[in-house]
């Protein structure tokens, strides 16, 4: 009886934990659940076009560089509109059909000026499976449940009036241990905050160097603890996600202030302006040590991908370089691809998907030497990093969200009926 009760209690806990958190296979934040741009999905489409393998496409109310977030059968995306981008949108769509389930709008409370290439819907939202946290370049930050109920809202520009920059903020928030990590490094009041995801109030706020920075924080599982890594042009710093206490700092000039760091599970892989660094963090809190440097691997804009012990980065010449993650040695170099690239590439099922600004997605087979499997064209501007979930790729253009995947049986039946 006691064993039965224990089993039942365990079963209930498992059921609760699965219902209360993101499912495996969800795409919950910038560059996916681990922030690495990698998905475990298989059977993803290789070829698509206006008449092929597009499950659905949905018109969006405005531009956005933010990537889609997928939780269960819901896709979330942010956008901005208006002559001065003063309208901020959070949308929820049904992932099987693309039907819009709800939309919430905010009025921008912060600075809306930016470089014409970017916009106020630049940071990608993040979800814990129950809630969506949407940050905009204006400093407007909203927490919503998956049905569109507003849980809390912050105007960071009202709280800290000098935040922002005239180029446009873009770093995305991440979640760690119930804390929403909000990066707001800028020429004004520059900081990173740990915000209680339940209440929206600050748990901590640490001052950062006053400078431009677009790097999304990265969560590194360092032994039995989590480090929140904040990379800027001159340093990478690890913070305790609960308290914001600095654990270590690695100073190095010329680190990237656009693409994000990542890990292969052992090393920290850090893009810099003219090289790439692999660091081994000390498990005792000591400073990391440099394991290798590679001048072959450059990632000026799009974040690199670490996939199956190899690091892939697309350089300014629109060439993908691949180095092995252990020693940093060049493995191969692709031919020039059809760029330019703003979106960070994603990897899954032995393939690398590279979405160009002009809407050409090159699908590279990376199981051995690089082989172009397909170049798929959608004649729109694509700046957002894609998402992978439910056997589909989600590509977000300036005007639409595309769900790319083989038609499901239900979809085929519906199409047949419509004919």
């Amino acid at each position, binding site marked *: 009886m006691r064993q039965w009760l224990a089993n039942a209690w365990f079963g209930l806990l498992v059921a609760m934990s699965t219902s209360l958190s993101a499912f495996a296979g969800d795409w919950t934040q910038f560059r996916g659940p681990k922030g690495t741009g990698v998905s475990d999905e298989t059977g993803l489409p290789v070829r698509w076009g206006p008449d092929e393998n597009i499950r659905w496409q949905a018109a969006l109310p405005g531009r956005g560089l933010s990537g889609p977030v997928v939780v269960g059968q819901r896709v979330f995306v942010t956008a901005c509109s208006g002559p001065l981008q003063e309208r901020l949108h959070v949308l929820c769509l049904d992932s099987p059909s693309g039907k819009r389930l709800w939309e*919430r*709008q905010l009025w921008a*409370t912060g*600075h809306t000026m930016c470089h014409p290439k970017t916009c106020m819907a630049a940071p990608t939202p993040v979800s814990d499976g129950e809630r969506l946290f949407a940050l905009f370049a204006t400093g407007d930050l909203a927490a919503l449940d998956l049905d*569109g109920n507003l849980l*809390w*809202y912050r105007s960071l520009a009202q709280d800290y009036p000098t935040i922002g920059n005239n180029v446009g903020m873009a770093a995305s928030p991440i979640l760690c241990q119930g804390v929403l990590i909000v990066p707001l490094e800028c020429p004004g009041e520059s900081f990173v905050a740990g915000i209680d995801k339940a209440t929206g109030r600050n748990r901590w706020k640490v001052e950062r160097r006053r400078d431009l920075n677009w790097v999304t924080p990265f969560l590194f599982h360092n032994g039995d603890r989590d480090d929140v890594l904040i990379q800027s042009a001159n340093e990478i710093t690890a913070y305790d996600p609960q308290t914001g206490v600095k654990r270590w700092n690695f100073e190095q000039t010329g680190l990237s202030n656009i693409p994000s760091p990542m890990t292969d599970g052992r090393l920290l892989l850090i893009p810099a302006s003219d090289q790439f660094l692999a660091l081994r963090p000390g498990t005792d809190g000591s400073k990391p040590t440099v394991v290798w440097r590679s001048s072959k691997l450059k990632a000026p804009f799009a974040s690199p991908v670490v996939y199956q012990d190899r690091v892939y980065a697309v350089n300014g010449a629109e060439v993908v370089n691949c180095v092995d993650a252990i020693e940093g040695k060049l493995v191969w170099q692709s031919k020039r691809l059809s760029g330019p690239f703003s979106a960070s590439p994603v990897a899954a099922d032995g393939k690398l998907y590279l979405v160009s600004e002009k809407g050409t997605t090159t699908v590279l087979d990376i199981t051995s030497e690089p082989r172009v499997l397909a170049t798929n064209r959608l004649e729109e501007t694509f700046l957002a990093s894609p998402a992978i979930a439910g056997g589909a790729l989600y590509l977000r253009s300036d005007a639409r969200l595309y769900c790319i995947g083989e038609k499901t049986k239900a979809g085929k039946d519906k199409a047949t009926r419509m004919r």
Partner: protein
Amino acid sequence: MKTTHVPVQIGLIGVALGLLCSGSAARSESSALIDRIKAVSSEGQGNEAAAKAWRELVRQGPGALLELLTALNDAKPIAANWLRSAVDAVAERALADNVALPAARLEQFVRDTSNAGPSRRLAYEWLARADSAIAERLLPGMLNDPGAELRRDAVARELAGARQLLERGDNAGASASLQALFKAARDRDQVEQIAKDLKSLNVAVDIRGHYGLITEWMLIGPFDNRGGQGFAEVFSPEKGVDLKAASKGKNGAEVHWFGYQAQDPLGLVDLNKAIGKNMGATAYAFATAIAPVECPVEIRAGSNNAVKMFLNGKLIYFREEYHHGMRMDQHTSTGTLKAGRNEILIKVCQNEQVDDWAQTWSFQLRVCDSLGGAVPMAVAAAGVNDVNDAAAPKKGQP
């Protein structure tokens, strides 16, 4: 007969009173919920109470819409976003459930210009989703609407008509329409499109006057800004402007105020030309605005450099950011012009970046109402050593 009706009448009165009371109770309940939302303040204080109130207001459905919209009229920015998202949730869910919105009352709310522009616009947008004819019914009367977005749509609608006249060769009709539209338009894209169309008809318009751009300035500089120290330093113009007094500028050189008239179509003052190319330098520009009556204004500037703006000696805006882009109105602050003489001072700091794209040292500034229209005022030309930037003398340069 009468006696038999008395209980009925009493009953009806009772029901009516009951309804009144319940309506009043509901309003009172909604008011309390709205108060909780309006109590949110800085750094997330009040979020939990506001979230509960938000859910309860949304649960009330379309019956809460008017009260929510009315509450938006005077809501501060944080509360406004709570309230507008509640309006969205109520209306969206009602339409999804085929529940009618209170269309007549919403339309009345939109028509009532004593309501705030953003809340009227929000009501309008939900009306438009339910009634596709609403734009044609309301927009024709909104060319001079006090709400920015409704006015914008009204201008866009009329502009489409004026351009059709142009295409048909009705130049007189198009010109008359475009001239009226030029007066009404506030958004830069519309103003400049209309001005361009008018130019094609050989009708000149005063864009600088329309925007309220100040083009006549008194300038002084350079003061120091090496190491970015000048932005925080209070140089003599910030202590009080005396146009006849000399000041100690960069490297100890004596600098003087001098008059300057910007010729740029959008009032840009190129300090590299006016004062002379300087890196690590600070300049001040001063203007006197004579207002016939006291009026609230927005003082808006564009500059690639770090700026501070002062109105009647009071700091009203600062932003210390260099060479990350310039846009008209990127620096915006509010203030009040008093009746009579007002002093407007802008401090513009240049840093020491050597990049080609970091050499600009300039600004433009306008005084306007909240929609971006010029306000009644006269800018007094100082008349001391007036120069024209076409000649580009460098008075004041050490």
